[in-house]
């Protein structure tokens, strides 16, 4: 494996700063009460800074991956002289456009272990960050409409169980019990034969995760620079030296690309080609109605996934658009197909109104797995290629990337996802579980 061959600078290269007294006010019900009584203003969640001329680590992209990496660098490793740069506002890319589904019911043992670690981090994230990210472990159902997908569900369930992840195959009656609005009759065009039920899966409030990490990183001394576009990456003698931004040049021995949607363009600035093609992924949301759908429902056959937020809206997604594009406009056809498929599953919700549609960009790799770790340019690291499954991996990716930066060693959990695998023929292959399985 490619681990450890090219590395971040040695450990001594960083100034490790002891944890400072927290600058932030703790959030709590009592705090809300006292702030409310005293009409006191809450302190800023993160602060503005002048851009310094150098940092120990520069992270490109203030989405969940970049912010989590920064947070864990500071919180777990004491590396605080870190800048997170974003060309627009924090959490405005894929991190604010996804449908916020969290699950670990993947197919390969590597995938299951990796995402299970992420689920566990999400489980304690609110407490760790002192920011309620509203992780709602309401259960995740992947429907099977033919014996082939039922077999795949059983395969995933068996692998999950062996990896200690709670998943099981259930029958149509149990599906009906969990989702009373579902049409499980045999008369539908694609009858529901069963489902993979994954109780720990669920949804999270994605903005809260971004903001929670940003607030946590800021409290540890990390600088977050919004509206700071990276225009160039300086490489000398095979080593990264720093970046050129719309607000001036900055030097750093380590630069981490945590972007999505434009990751191949950012990597190209450092002369690192990526085997990525970028596809739009569309999503949509309805008006709120009273709670009737308490689990996440996914149907690969019908290309749809749906969940209901605590506010009462249904959030929908589908598969990526079939053509590469950087356009983030929604299409009419998407909403038509989506509605048709949802009504196949739940015919009684035809009177619910679609309120808004949008699109995000997905960096697809040939094996539907991310690219994490070192590149041919020393000190230039990547955490990219997150396709349609990036948000659910934010915490674990940040934790692992921080460990790589701090120790110079690729953690085992991400060793399989190195960039070199494409040149050496070691594809990972989560195609089956990732295709529509959000």
């Amino acid at each position, binding site marked *: 494996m490619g681990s450890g061959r090219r590395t971040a600078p040695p450990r001594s290269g960083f100034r490790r700063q002891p944890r400072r007294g927290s600058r932030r006010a703790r959030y*709590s019900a009592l*705090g*809300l009460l006292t702030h*409310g009584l005293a*009409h006191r*203003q*809450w302190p*800023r*969640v*993160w*602060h503005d800074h002048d851009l310094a001329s150098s940092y120990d680590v520069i992270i490109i992209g203030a989405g969940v991956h970049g912010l989590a990496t920064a947070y864990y660098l500071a919180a777990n490793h004491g590396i605080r002289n870190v800048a997170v740069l974003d060309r627009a*506002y924090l*959490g405005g890319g894929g991190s604010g456009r996804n449908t916020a589904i969290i699950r670990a019911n993947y197919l390969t043992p590597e995938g299951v272990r990796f995402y299970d670690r992420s689920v566990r981090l999400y*489980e304690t994230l*609110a*407490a760790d960050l002192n920011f*309620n990210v*509203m992780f*709602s*472990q309401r259960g995740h159902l992947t429907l099977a*409409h*033919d014996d*082939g997908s039922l077999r795949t569900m*059983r*395969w995933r369930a*068996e692998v999950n169980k*062996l990896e200690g992840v709670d998943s099981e*195959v259930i029958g149509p009656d149990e599906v009906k019990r969990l989702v009373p609005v579902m049409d499980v009759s045999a008369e539908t065009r694609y009858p529901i034969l069963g489902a993979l039920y994954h109780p720990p899966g669920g949804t999270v409030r994605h*903005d*809260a995760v971004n*903001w*929670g990490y940003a607030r946590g990183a800021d409290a540890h001394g990390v600088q977050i620079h*919004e509206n700071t576009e990276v225009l160039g990456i300086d490489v000398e003698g095979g080593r990264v030296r720093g970046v050129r931004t719309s607000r001036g040049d900055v030097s750093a021995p380590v630069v981490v690309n945590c972007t999505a949607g434009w990751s191949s363009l950012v990597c190209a600035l450092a002369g690192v080609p990526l085997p990525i093609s970028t596809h739009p992924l569309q999503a949509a949301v309805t*008006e709120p*109605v*009273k*709670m009737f759908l308490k689990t996440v429902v996914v149907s690969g056959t019908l290309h749809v996934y749906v969940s209901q937020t*605590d*506010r009462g809206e249904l959030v929908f997604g589908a598969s990526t658009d079939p053509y590469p594009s950087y356009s983030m*406009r929604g*299409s*009419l056809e998407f*909403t*038509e197909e989506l*509605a*048709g498929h949802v*009504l196949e599953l739940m015919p*009684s*919700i*035809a*009177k*619910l*109104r*679609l*309120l808004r549609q949008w699109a995000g960009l997905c960096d697809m790799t*040939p094996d539907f797995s991310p690219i994490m770790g070192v590149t041919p340019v020393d000190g230039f690291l990547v955490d990219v290629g997150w396709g349609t499954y990036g948000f659910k991996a934010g915490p674990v990716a940040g934790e692992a990337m921080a460990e790589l930066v701090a120790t110079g060693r690729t953690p085992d959990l991400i060793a399989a996802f190195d960039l070199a695998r494409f040149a050496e*023929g070691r*594809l990972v292959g989560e*195609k*089956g579980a990732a295709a529509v399985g959000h």
Partner: protein
Amino acid sequence: MTATGGFRLPAQPGELIDRSRLLPFTWNGQRHVGLAGDTITSALAADGVRVFSRSFKYHRPRGILTASYIDPGVTVQVDDEPNVRASHRRLAAGMTVTRQNAWPSLRYDVGTANQLVGRFLTAGFYYKTFIKPQRLWPAYESVLQRFASGGRLSGDSVHGYYDKRYAHPDVLVAGGGPAGMGAALAAAQAGARVMLVEEEHELGGSLRWGGVEELALLSELRAAVAAAGVEVLVDSVVAGRYDDNWVSVLQRGLPEVQERLVKARVKTLVVAAGLIERPFVFSGNDLPGVMLGTAVRRLVNLYAVRPGTRAVVLSANPEGDAAVADLRRAGVEVAAVVDARRGEDIHRALGKREVTGVELADGSRVDCDLLVTSIGWTTPTSLLNMAGDRPRFDAAAARFRPTDDLPASVLAAGGIVGDGTPEELVAHGRGVGAAAAGRAGFGGPSLADLPPPLTGRPHPGLFRGRTHGMVDFSEDVSSKDILSAAREGYDSAELVKRYTTATMGPSQGKLETVNTIAVLAEATGSTIAELGTTVWRPPYAPITLGALAGRIFQPVRYSPMQAWHEAHGAQPLVAGMWIRPDHYGDPAAEVRTVRERVGIIDVTPLGKLDLRGPDVPRLLNAVYVNKWSKLEVGSVRYGVMCAEDGVVMDDGVTGRLGPDRYLMSTTSSGAAAVWEHLEGWLQTERPEWQVHVTPLTTSYASINIAGPRSRELLARLTEGVDLSAEAFPYMRVRAGRIAGVDDCFMWRIGFTGELSYEIHVPASFGLHVWEALLDRGRDLGAAAFGVEAQRILRLEKGHLIVAQDTDGLTKAFDAGLDALVKLDKDDFIGRRELVWSHERGSAYTLVGLQPVDGSVVPPEACQIVRGANTIVGRITSSRMSPTLGRSVCLGYVLAELAGPGSLVTVQLPDGARIQATVMPHLAHIDPEGRRLRV
């Protein structure tokens, strides 16, 4: 309650109601009677109803604000339909209308307690609490969920009838006010086919609530529009504008059709959406009885409803002055007119459950039950935005106005552009309409010039007064929430929107966006112009899922023999697009028929592609891993296709029917994908190759005749083909006549492991040939078999099924196809990966497996394990074999465990473990293939 209603006025010149038609309905269980032409709101307001709902977060009482579709406080449940816009929906007899968001009643609402603690429920409060203990979060969450706004869906609702329509108008005009009617008229008079779309129930826009002159102009315009042959869609809304003027229109209120989605490819789109009146932000601005000037004008003039008894009006424009005149005419006492143009202001609205008075800027109080504000406008630029325009804020006019940054096929007309008298708006519309027609190719190029744009008249910039009030009525977001969010750091338009949820509600910012930006500008010391607006996303108005879905077309494919299958008790199997016979009652018996006599199976769904041209061998060499150059006429060959990553994607048999003519078969499930794959390859990678691909899957009915007596049976029906083993050996193809049907193909191949023939007959004769085979084979014991028997037969024989015995990771070598892959061949799809795969060797090997206890059939997808939980393989296929009387399997095991005779451990779904033996061959019966070659 009476039919007239205590607040109903005498006849008004522009009223829409029919006083002769009474419509009974219920509101929260109480009987009411409205009039035809009423909206739900106007009927209730005529009966004196003031409180229509409770707000989402603080459960504050809410009443009429805009009296239009986007009225935020009057969303109700009508029968089984949630979230009905009561200020837009026409009343119908027998409606059951109920409140949303109030329990147990509008008057006594438990959620009102939230008002008392409102100080602590600031925007985003939920991010700051319920953090610990974590185990209690699900309980907190279910409480939060209970406060979700919106109505209730009924599980018993039926899908209903929804329709779609395609339209190709030359000019589509969005908005049927004075400018829109003018535009439609001018475009139609230039010869263009025009579609005019109006959101409300009738054309006219603001002319409808004008005086005598406006009403005269309106009837003149309506007559002209009708005479000009314009297609008018009322109660319809242009929901989205997509690339190349692909325009979606939602049409409502059609008889029998609940909603219709009209999809229009439009040459020129004219956006004449007018203006939306903007609320003012001040304390108490959401109390029932606080209304916009246009709401008053609608209620009085369109529905003859007196909106209150004693009014205070804050006016900054002529529309506000006109509202004052309307109120006086309606007999409402106007206690005070506060003229913002003279710097006058109100401080706050007073009252708990409804407005009871107003505190003016000087501290004096005026009692009233109606407070009217007319303080400015929002430009609904949504459609222009979707076409690429980024409107600019015009501080003098106190509203956003479009720029010229639009494609030539999109134009703006009327109030959305600037101000004017009704006549000026009509004239501007006419000019733009003529230009639109010109751009669509009518009336000559000179007409394509746009009229001079309307300018924005100066208007005081009023957004928030001296007190804090609601900015987003549907989401319960106050100006204080926005200020504190900005101070906390959520200080860009996008962040403040996401944090406070302002503008995220049902009206999607039409009422709220500009005020949100204004308060944010105040908080950050910047200006509205600097902050700009957020991106408006489609749809402009919400659309039901039913309308988007339309009638759901999910095509089903049946073979020509389906009627026979159904008549003979076939159990249906959904196989993608196809419905197939799974079995006819006893699959084990069907297996024995094939092994001992002869069976026939309907395999019509098998993909069939006709390939012609001199370069077919090159194509076959590219897409299959094996070699095809030397395939002779009359021969067939088995081939495997891999994707670029070396993963097996399909398999099948391809035969050479003539020098330049081939027939390729694919798996049933892969038929469409393989066709796309071939076309993709030919059209993008090798366009110079001369190959024609024609899909024939449904043109031929396909039947497999399998079993030791199959030759005998087929010979009875075949003319012109010698079926003897010498003349027609294994892996050959012949064409001839079967049961009197010409142009049939026969392939001698054997998926079941028996002597067998796959015949493809023109589809129209499929049933005839099928019945002839059974009829002529009666004495041979011929019978039909289904997919399940075929799966058992092929498993006994050890033939793999792509996507069952292979998966998204299986490369050709992993599936034991070593003999097939010819790495010495010129490049082919997947070769590069397969070279690596070959060098490294396969981690896993596909093997035949037999459980030690032959009575146990481990379910497919069971994992093969070692130690506590290490996965070392899995079962891909398993069945009880009727031929062997024991269970048989295929599966993958680690290469080191693949030696014949090695024992592996299979974990069953219930956690129990069993032992299974690795067999020497994939085939559990006849590994040498003698039965095939007889």
